[in-house]
């Protein structure tokens, strides 16, 4: 069967608190739909294989790699992307601690950390490590990111 003959479907999504309707292939990933259909290019493709974490968004209250999730799976959930954060403390902390250089992995890291802070406001080092090792940063030595995360956690 040719790709063009796959039937397209209409889908309602809740992205950053807004109801959005898209017409997509059922096989489209959430990342494809965010970037190509909704113009939300803050979520970055890095591997399309769940290895790098650059495409991380928050679905419900958990960080999810949007390249590993079909858009249709997001239908009944609240999805938050980097564009949906409004002066979250971790955004400012990333600036103040110099926790990025090229900035490409940054949205994924920030979304992951934002979910972590909400779920585990007093996370210990091991928990932080467990959560953040799903993302790769190639520019920093991670210490600056670690400082930014710590500055947003309760003691």
């Amino acid at each position: 069967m040719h790709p063009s003959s796959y039937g397209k479907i209409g889908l309602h999504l809740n992205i950053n608190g807004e109801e959005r309707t898209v017409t997509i292939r059922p096989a489209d990933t959430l990342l494809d739909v965010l970037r190509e259909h909704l113009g939300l290019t803050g979520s970055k493709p890095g591997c399309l294989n769940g290895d790098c974490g650059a495409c991380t968004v928050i679905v419900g209250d958990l960080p999810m790699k949007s390249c590993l999730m079909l858009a249709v799976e997001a239908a009944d959930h609240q999805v938050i992307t980097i564009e949906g954060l409004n002066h979250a403390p971790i955004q400012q902390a990333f600036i103040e601690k110099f926790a990025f250089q090229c900035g490409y992995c940054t949205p994924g890291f920030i979304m992951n950390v934002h979910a972590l802070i909400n779920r585990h406001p007093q996370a210990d080092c091991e928990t932080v490590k467990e959560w953040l090792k799903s993302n790769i940063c190639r520019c920093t030595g991670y210490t600056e990111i670690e400082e930014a995360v710590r500055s947003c956690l309760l003691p």
Partner: protein
Amino acid sequence: METIGKSVYRKEAPDKVTGAAKYTADVQKPGMLHAKLVISPYAHARIKDIDISEARKMPGVRAVLTGQPTPLVGEEIRDRPPIAFGKVRYHGEPAAVVVADTPVQAQAAAERIRIAYEPLPVVNSPADALRKDAPLIHENLEQYEKGVMTYAEPNTNIASRIRIRKGDAAKGFSESDVIVENRISFAPSDHAAMETRCCVAEIAADGTVTIITSSQAPFMAKKIISAAFGVEIGKIVVHAPLVGGAYGGKSSVQWEIIGYLASKAVGGRPVKLDYTREEDLLTAPVHIGLDATVKLGCSKDGKLLAAEMVYLFDSGAYADKSPNLSRAGAVDCTGPYHIDHVSCDSLSVYTNHPYPSAFRGFAHSEVLFAFERTMDMLAAKLQMDPLALRRKNAIAPGHTTPTQVLLNTSNVGNLPRCLERLQELMNWEEGALIRLSDRKVRAKGISCIWKTSTIEPDASSGAVLLANPDGSINLVSGVVEIGTGTKTVLAQMLAEKLRMDVSRIHVKMEVDTQTTPEHWKTVASRGTFMAGRAVLAAAEDLIRQLKDIASRVLRCSPDDLEVGGERVFLRDDPKTGISIKDIAYGYTYPNGNAIGGQIIGRGNYILRHLTCLDPETGAGVPGPEWTVGAQGVVVEYDRRDHTYQILKAVSVIDIGNVLNAKAARGQVIGAMSMGLSFGGRETFEIDRNGIVLNPQLRTYRPLRFGEHPEYIVDFVETPQLDAPFGARGVGEHGLLGMPAALANALSLASGTDLNRLPLTPEFIWRTKRGTSHDSV
């Protein structure tokens, strides 16, 4: 100083934490088509037939491209068809391209292309490539067009050979009491920037070619496409928006050429070519591999007398930058030591591996791994402290480099001082090897570093400053923002020079080759130096114009005026002056007469007194200055299972002058992290057929969060007199000694000389068992 030295936040910081920052892959254009590659599954094979008939019939397909005999492309040797023609020479080489309406359609059609290959014998290492019976990878090497600094040897696999002959090595060895000889080796690896290479190309009705690309070298892309395809150079406009990590890997021109061909095939419509991660690792240029031998001779008290090196750089299937890499490795072939007798042959050798581009450090971490491992072996043989051996031989003003450049207090930093600081920071006095338990030891390893920037002798950089009607200034420079924060540092320099607030300087982030003055390439830690000089020159020009117009308004000599705080005022009566905003667009008198016009400052800089190297001896001036430093690593090593943890990594670098404290520290730590990752874990696993087995970030694994050690960074400040505010290049240097220092620490800890990379527990185990890397 007001702004220099301060940790000013990056100008593009708000965009980068909100998802607003735009990279090449974020670009969408009306009517944009999508290209997908078909890549070679073989490392070396003849292409017998390509059947595109089924692919052509697939829905949405607008064009299918296959290789042509000409033109050939390549930066130093034009040896590469942009799409393979006749044969493929590496695993991952583009063999065909499909252009379709959507990426999904392009991919579906790409899978319908049938290519019949006839496998050829594979050259799997530089050493194999030099064997008499080795297959020739380029039969036509003699006919290829070559750069002036490339010394190819036709009818062999040698793409270039650089010779360094300083003093008389044979004499040096005959006078030596102690001699060691060592071999090292590592396979190619990768930059693995988080943003994969991507471009969008289109051709307008008047023939203007527009390319948006994730590149460190937009100006080079323009030159190469013009030269290869005969497009008038002024009609090529290359845009480089923010780049998502580069590390040298985006200084080669490859994907842009394919994008241009794809657009041409569909009548100039915009076409996006976005490499998958697998293509980014395999197809795009990689980090060079090296086989090397190092022989050192010294007196019995440890004075180095002679060094003889053979460096065989793995040029892979095509030359591109490898002749320059072997040249850069040659000019600093010894590490930062004073040695009277030096002989080095540094070759770039064709193999059937993916071909290299620059990698952060440009051949220096590679050569230093070979040299600094051998220094530790020499220290062991002498029964001398490895730090003391290095201090005794440390390069200093008055000494000469391997290419016989006489060093002075400006063009080289203070290595002895760096070593002293390293000794303190690593608590060297407690000993390098400490037993913790029956299983565990703690061990320390060190490495000295140095680097000059061997960029083209005629490389230049320009800057333009535009005054705004509110008195703020726009800064336009050809430096690409690849993550190093250089454009923010340039704004700091300008703020310092104009004595104004850095927040009032607006930096143009995107480079486009039509309106941005050329900056040769954003490489070689040259951004702050060359673009900095250009910005300072432009600031002088701006100040001259400001004073000129103000002098007429204020009815005084321009010589009586000063600029600061967005005003031009009398030096001896600062209250008498005029705001820049009132003259930025010219001055209007009360009766309506006007003078002047928008103030536009321009400046440029070209490196001075660099020379080509003598082909027989290598004598010549390859770069403007040498940044030096000393680095160390502390590991905790398990003697039973050979696992280890890196506890600390230390860098002391003579940076000249710190321009932005946190940004400089961030550059050094980031580079150290990359160096530890390269030394400890990163490599392409290449099988006997030349196939790369791990082209994914699941199997090619850079350091992750939590695997990082404690980083200690300290700076020595010996100003480089002709650099802006005395600052030396520092973007690469944190990386340079990390592989060697890690190998020295682990060699000490394991009691075995470890001379290959990466230093995985498995490799250490195999070395201790005495079996080779490749067999079980």
